[in-house]
């Protein structure tokens, strides 16, 4: 981070807040300031020279002075414009650099935030904070600053000149400025909430479009283009309305601001004319006043617009600061990254509830301990807390109660980088980057070495994950670029790629969260064989719905509503006749198609020809198994479909 936000910062005004980001470029601002001052002096020189041309050359006829004066005029003007160009460039660079630091900090901050933040923040909203909001800040730093400076210098120097010429007229003119000042303040005050509303509306629009793009397959599948357009229109209209609110605020105040500035001319003509008529001022002085009037008029006219820009800047600052000030719930432990985690994992009385829903614990009283190199299988219903449990290992969340020990040390005391580089999770939502397959597989492995692991290694990992065949079948093989999130690949292909990516990272603890659900069973069996061969000392957690994926585990945990209801090896659990056994039997039943299986005696490979009968028998034997009833029911209705749907 370029700037670490502290609690003290929160009270700071936007200018003092932004300053640390701009500070390293203070030199540029100072240089720009000097150039700015020189330019202002040169600007004053130009009317003086033209005055000399008129007075001395034209009126007095000193023609020999013409060429030097004109030469000086062109030269000074040329120098002046390039000085201005110079400080404009300094300020542009200044603004760019400050924003560069700011956005970098946003990016870095974002990567320290935990899953609960991302679960509740829309991508489109974060994007606005990193693009349009920062642009408002750049505009302020690079442009508004020196224009405000311009206005102040112009206004101040014109005032000084005017007071030296005739204080009465000057006083009459400046009498209007407090009114303008008050109006401008009012306008700015009203504009602030509007700017805030505009940027929020933009963020919503952004999010809506973003989601539409992401969900384009669903939109098309349900032919909801019109519905989406309606939704879009709502946001589009709202964004326009918010902008029109701004226009209304401008229309309310700007004409008054402008009218009072214009009124300066009127005062000049009436009061100035009166002073001249009454012999209290010379005609020449009136003409001079007229010549300088634009120098106070212009800044006053611009005041409204500049204040608007400042308010836009303020509104954007708030949003960015809010992002930078989020305190991640998962805090980095002190200490240097360590080399290697062995892979012992222990959960001690772990409970967890999401912070926004503390009443519904997702996990309760989880206790288990396994040694490095063990295989753990986790089974449970949809929403029973399986994914959350493994997320605690890599500290994507911290437990509400209890502790997770890795190699006997509280996970919260491991440096995050060590922990996460040694724990690889293959997530249920596979995310691939829009890059080549090769780069995607090498994603994690690059961290250690800095450069890409060799091709052979990547291929090997892909082969272990059962992905090599289909990758090679693609026209560009490993150089095929996959779409964002891996769109265009089938679910099974994505899963295998993300498994290969995790394996290439060479973790001590490998977590597979329903990684092979979309992979056909044959390939899955292959993958498991490969994994067994290479896993060695790795601790492997497997979440699955298919018993086949976990039955060889050293420990199987069955979760229900966040509690471990059964634990043990496959043999233990089958013997226990509990929930696991029930699921196992069902899967056998479903797998074998209890009702429709053809004559089993004709199947020579099946040593267990009596399987269907065994299932039936045990269903009878097992009391109160309502789920078994459902198997029967579904089988019946399938047979119905078979009967009247297909055959006529």
């Amino acid at each position, binding site marked *: 981070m370029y700037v670490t936000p502290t609690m003290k910062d929160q009270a700071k005004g936007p200018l003092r807040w932004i300053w640390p980001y701009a500070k390293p470029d203070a030199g540029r601002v100072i240089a720009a300031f000097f150039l700015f001052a020189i330019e202002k002096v040169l600007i004053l020189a130009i009317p003086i020279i033209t005055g000399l041309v008129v007075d001395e050359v034209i009126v007095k006829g000193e023609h020999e002075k013409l060429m030097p004066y004109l030469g000086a005029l062109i030269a000074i003007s040329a120098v002046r414009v390039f000085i201005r160009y110079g400080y404009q460039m300094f300020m542009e660079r200044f603004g760019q650099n400050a924003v560069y630091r700011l956005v970098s900090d946003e990016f870095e901050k974002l990567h320290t935030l935990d899953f609960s933040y991302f679960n509740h923040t829309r991508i489109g909203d974060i994007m606005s904070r990193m693009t349009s909001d920062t642009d408002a800040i750049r505009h302020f730093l690079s442009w508004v600053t020196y224009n405000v400076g311009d206005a102040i210098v112009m206004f101040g120097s014109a005032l000084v000149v005017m007071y030296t010429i005739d204080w009465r007229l000057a006083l009459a003119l400046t009498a209007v400025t407090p009114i303008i000042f008050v109006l401008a303040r009012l306008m700015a005050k009203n504009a602030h909430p509007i700017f805030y509303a505009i940027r929020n509306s933009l963020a919503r629009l952004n999010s809506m479009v973003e989601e539409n793009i992401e969900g384009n397959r669903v939109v098309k599948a349900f032919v909801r283009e019109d519905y989406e357009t309606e939704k879009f229109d709502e946001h589009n209209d709202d964004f326009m309305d918010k902008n029109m609110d701004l226009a209304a605020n401008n229309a309310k105040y700007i004409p008054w601001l402008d009218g009072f500035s214009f009124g300066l001319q009127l005062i000049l003509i009436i009061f100035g004319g009166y002073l001249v008529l009454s012999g209290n001022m010379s005609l020449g002085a009136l003409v001079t006043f007229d010549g300088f009037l634009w120098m106070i008029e212009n800044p006053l006219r611009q005041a409204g617009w500049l204040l608007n820009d400042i308010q836009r800047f303020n509104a954007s600052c708030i949003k960015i600061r809010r992002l930078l000030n989020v305190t991640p719930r998962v805090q980095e432990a002190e200490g240097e990254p360590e080399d290697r985690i062995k892979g012992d994992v222990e959960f001690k009385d772990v409970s967890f509830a999401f912070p926004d829903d503390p009443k519904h614990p997702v996990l309760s009283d989880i206790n288990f301990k396994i040694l490095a190199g063990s295989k753990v299988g986790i089974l449970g219903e949809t929403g029973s807390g399986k994914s959350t449990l493994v997320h605690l290992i890599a500290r994507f969340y911290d437990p509400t109660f209890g502790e997770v020990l890795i190699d006997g040390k509280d996970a919260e005391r491991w440096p995050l980088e060590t922990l*996460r580089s040694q724990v690889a999770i293959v997530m249920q939502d596979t995310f691939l980057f829009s890059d080549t397959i090769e780069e995607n597989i090498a994603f994690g492995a690059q961290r250690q070495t800095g450069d890409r692991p060799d091709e052979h290694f990547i291929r090997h990992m892909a082969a272990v994950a059962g992905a090599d065949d289909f990758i090679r079948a693609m026209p560009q093989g490993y150089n095929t670029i996959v779409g964002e999130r891996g*769109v265009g690949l089938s679910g099974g292909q994505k899963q295998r790629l993300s498994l290969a990516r995790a394996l290439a990272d060479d973790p001590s603890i490998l977590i597979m969260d329903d990684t092979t659900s979309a*992979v056909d069973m044959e390939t899955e069996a292959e993958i498991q064989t490969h994994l067994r061969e290479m896993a060695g000392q790795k601790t492997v957690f497997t979440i699955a719905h298919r018993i086949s994926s976990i039955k060889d585990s050293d420990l199987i945990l069955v979760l229900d509503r966040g509690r471990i209801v059964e634990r043990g090896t496959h043999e233990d659990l089958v013997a226990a006749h509990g929930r696991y056994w029930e699921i196992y039997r069902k899967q056998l039943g479903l797998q074998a198609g209890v009702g429709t299986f053809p004559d089993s005696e004709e199947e020579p490979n099946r040593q267990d020809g009596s399987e269907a009968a065994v299932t039936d028998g045990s269903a009878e034997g097992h009391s109160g198994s309502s789920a078994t009833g459902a198997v029967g029911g579904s089988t019946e209705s399938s*047979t119905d479909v078979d009967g009247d749907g297909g055959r006529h």
Partner: protein
Amino acid sequence: MAQRNTFKEDEELEEKLNIHDLKRVVRYLGPYKALIAKILVAVITMSLCAVAVPYMMKIVIDDIIPNKDMTKLGILAGVFFCLIIVYEVCLRYRTMEIMRVGQLMLKDMRRDIFTHIQTLPFSYFDSRPHGKILIRVVNYVNTLSDTLSSGLISVISDVFTLFVTLIIMFVVNWTLALWSLILVPLLIIWVRVLQYFQRIAYQKLSNKQSNLNAYIHESIAGVKTTQTFAREKQQYKIFQEQQGSVRDHWMKAVHIQFLMWPGVQTVSTATLAFVYFLGVTHFGGVGVTTGVLIAFTGYLNNFWNPIINIGNFYNQLITASAYLERIFETMDVKPEITDRPDAKPIAPIHGKVDFNDVVFRYEEGGRNILNLVDFHVEPGQTIALVGPTGAGKTTIISLLSRFYDVSEGSVEVDGKDVRDVTLNSLRRQMGVMLQDTFVFSGTVKENIRYGKLDATDAEIVAAAKAVSAHEFIEELPQGYETFVEERGSTLSAGQRQLIAFARVMLADPRILILDEATSSIDTRTEEALQAGINKLLEGRTSFVIAHRLSTIENADKIFYIDRGQIMEQGTHAELLAQRGMYWRLYESQYAMLKVNEAELKKA
């Protein structure tokens, strides 16, 4: 799979400033002609008021003060006051209405580009980072706002002022007026040269901005993955490179853009000096009095101010054109799949489906993804598609909903070629449950309702019950009203699949397509769901892709697909009897779960 676009890739640049782009922009102003005309009247009134001010000053100095005419001063003050009122009323109108025209135009443009991307095929979304699409709809359009509203209108008033001033200059002294135009060609050359470089610079900049946006988008979307692999530092480095590149190109672009003003300013000063020179030396047949010379230099200022403004506008236009191009380029992407001009809505579908020797490839001359697929399905049949991943199963169902068009052969529904009916009527009758379940941000109820927009709450609950989703939904903090975030990040994958299922259930399609619909659902739920699925399959033609054979054994026909061809087809029993590929697949699955008889006996 076609070569894709990533955040690293720049898009192609076009050399010339495209005049058609500008014409297209002007077309967006079309509907607001009347309003623009009114604004112009207001703007011109304002310029006239502004022009009157120096004239009044002249009256004071030349007339009132020498004659010591207090009453005339009073009258003049009254007139001036009225002028200010008129001016400010016009200003108020202009402030409001310019914003309105500008916003309306941007709104139309944004809507056009949004509705257009709705018509684009999957491949468009699959082949480029989504951040690049997003930046076009939102950010690029916003950058046009000032240029196209206030910029354009003040330029019109500037042109007006310029002409008035020119006429006055020629009336005052036409030779001097002509001479004072002598440096204008120099200015034009300066502007043209700058324009050339500025345009290139801005095109490059917009490219880099697009890349950066793509990278930011992808980084946010993939932040969990980055954290999982603890790769934050590398991502940060790439980000800084991208951002640095935008900064560099920005600096290059403004270095060129900001050169415009010094050029105009220098030429204007040089012209002023030249006019003095002519006036004083009487060179080139210029004979002027001192008074005329001084007045003339005053007009020169009025002449150059609008030119500077016009120059600035031109500058903005060049900048905007870099973004406009990208916007129009997106609008010009032709949707690959469109209704034929004579397409008619398809009648309520009975469910007969025919694939007649279908060949499909993504691009001409590419690899055949499907090779002579030929099958015929009677209404109400359930068809299961099995086979290794990448065999072409998903492609077959995509052709059925006409997400792609066949390269050869034809796909017919109820005997009608799908290319001859309207897309809308076809897809509305098909229910596709995709592999990627997508949940929109909104309540659970709204998400289910997506399947049938006018569904009652009771229908929604019924659909949820039918797919066994009701139970878990009720347990959510606010039940059906629970707000789920983008992509349903607060739900488990299985729960998302159930919601997506309920959505299809509610849609009550004539042809049902289930693409790996139950992969993340646990056995108990799946079992309960099975009854719902069976009900759903009843009486409608269905296509089911699944790896779990339990889901497919009961199908009327099973197609074993490999390498883009149907290798085997028949019922479960027939295929097992054939002892072919399906049989092998079945056996291998069975082997995985081989019952340890001893185990069960023990039990």
